[in-house]
């Protein structure tokens, strides 16, 4: 609270602080109510319902929305997550290596893939690599390309998370392991990494949520009606019927997955807080 001259002389404070607080709060409620009312009155509800919740259009989206689009989104995301997890762990260990070359390589890798937009990585994978290495093909066609491209982007973030987790394991744990005759590698594998993984489960789950959304970038590689995913599927149908209802459905499908994951993250974080 300022006590400068411009704040006015003391006798002006006729309202008690608590009273002033109550008035301020009422004003905030009033502003919120006014905003809601304004939007509700100025919107054309009939057009809104037709454009965003047209049942006839919605019917056209099923069952492909689930059997193809959602399924592919899940496949793209999980395969990229596995690639990112393994690569991320390897890069994190390289980043903490005692060999300078590994450290340098890991640092460059992280900085590059964290600094590039995922879209650019996808474009390079989709159009750059096939030109540079003619005849090169990823296994499982589209699925393989996506797993590697999205996995690389994810691995850079995950590497930093793993590194933080490994460094959060107290030094005494390694010392105790070494004092029992374990080699550096054995101490890492049996003692440090298992504890680091527990620490990084919440941030890694967050990364999974981000990946679900990033998997929508697959469209730049060009997808068929069989390899399409949620965003592309919703977008195509929306264009076809000139109606946004499929996009709403696609959005809802994302939320069906990401909201529970977000809940899990909050639970895990609360649990770790308590354990401390």
């Amino acid at each position: 609270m300022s006590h400068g001259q411009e704040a006015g002389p003391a006798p002006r404070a006729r309202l008690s602080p608590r009273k002033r607080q109550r008035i301020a709060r009422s004003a905030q409620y009033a502003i919120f109510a006014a905003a809601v009312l304004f939007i509700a009155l100025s919107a054309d509800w009939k057009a809104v319902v037709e454009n965003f919740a047209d049942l006839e259009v919605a019917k056209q989206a099923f069952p492909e929305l689930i059997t193809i689009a959602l399924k592919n989104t899940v496949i793209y995301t999980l395969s990229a997550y596995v690639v990112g997890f393994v690569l991320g762990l390897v890069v994190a260990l390289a980043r903490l290596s005692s060999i300078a070359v590994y450290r340098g390589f890991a640092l460059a890798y992280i900085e590059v893939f964290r600094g590039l937009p995922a879209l650019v990585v996808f474009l390079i994978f989709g159009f750059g690599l096939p030109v540079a290495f003619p005849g090169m093909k990823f296994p499982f066609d589209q699925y393989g390309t996506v797993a590697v491209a999205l996995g690389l982007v994810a691995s850079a973030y995950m590497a930093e998370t793993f590194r933080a987790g490994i460094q959060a394991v107290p030094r005494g744990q390694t010392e105790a392991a070494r004092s029992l005759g374990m080699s550096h590698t054995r101490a890492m594998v049996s003692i440090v990494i298992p504890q680091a993984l527990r620490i990084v489960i919440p941030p890694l789950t967050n990364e999974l949520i981000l990946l679900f959304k990033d998997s929508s970038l697959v469209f730049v590689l060009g997808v068929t009606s069989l390899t399409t995913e949620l965003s592309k599927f919703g977008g195509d149908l929306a264009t076809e019927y000139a109606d946004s209802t499929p996009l709403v459905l696609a959005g809802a499908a994302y939320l069906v997955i990401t909201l529970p994951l977000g809940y899990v993250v909050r639970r895990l974080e609360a649990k770790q807080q308590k354990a401390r």
Partner: protein
Amino acid sequence: MSAVQILGLHKSFGDLEVLRGIDATVESGEVVCVIGPSGSGKSTLLRCVNLLEQPNSGRIVVNGVEITDPDCDINAARRRVGMVFQQFNLFQHLTVLDNLTIAQRKVLKRDKADAERTAMENLEKVGVADKARAYPATLSGGQQQRVAIARALSMGPEVMLFDEPTSALDPELVGEVLGVMRTLATEGMTMLVVTHEMQFAREVADKVLFMDGGVVVEQGPPSRVIAAPQHERTKTFLARVLDPINRSE
């Protein structure tokens, strides 16, 4: 043959010279207590004996094997030297039993039944066998430190190092840990103990080393070093430790 022989040991951290030429021996079956003010290099000395710190110069010989020899297998050397830490350092993600068996199985390649038998014997010995299935975080500090002692013993060490094993404990839990250490001593375990517990040093130690400023100022039986110190620095330190309220200056 001495169990541990330390010859002309020097250790620096950057510009800070922590150990400035230490000579000491621990005979087989002997209990040696290292005392001295904080920052005197006691813990560093202990950590050099199982190479958690790499000495800059000097030699350390454990039961005839020179562990400071560059060709020496560090992991093999450490297996023969058990270490107990101030902060216990139990593996938080493993049960008490797994804390005791993991190194036996991965390092000594003992089979599961064998490792568990050894583990249970040692937990029995330190009086926490009933906690075998518990996780370390659920134990009291005294219990954790006793588990840590049992973990080190399970590797069958020739020498046990204790780095201020009771300094992180609530006062009422100190006794149970010192009790275990005293039992070990009477069983003939060779022990090198950094401690502030003067009564333990007086009653259990065969030899006391007083360190200050990175050198051993005085050493001998506790009846001499603690009860009748010769050096001024030893006298000042003991006066402060034994009567902290009146000699706090």
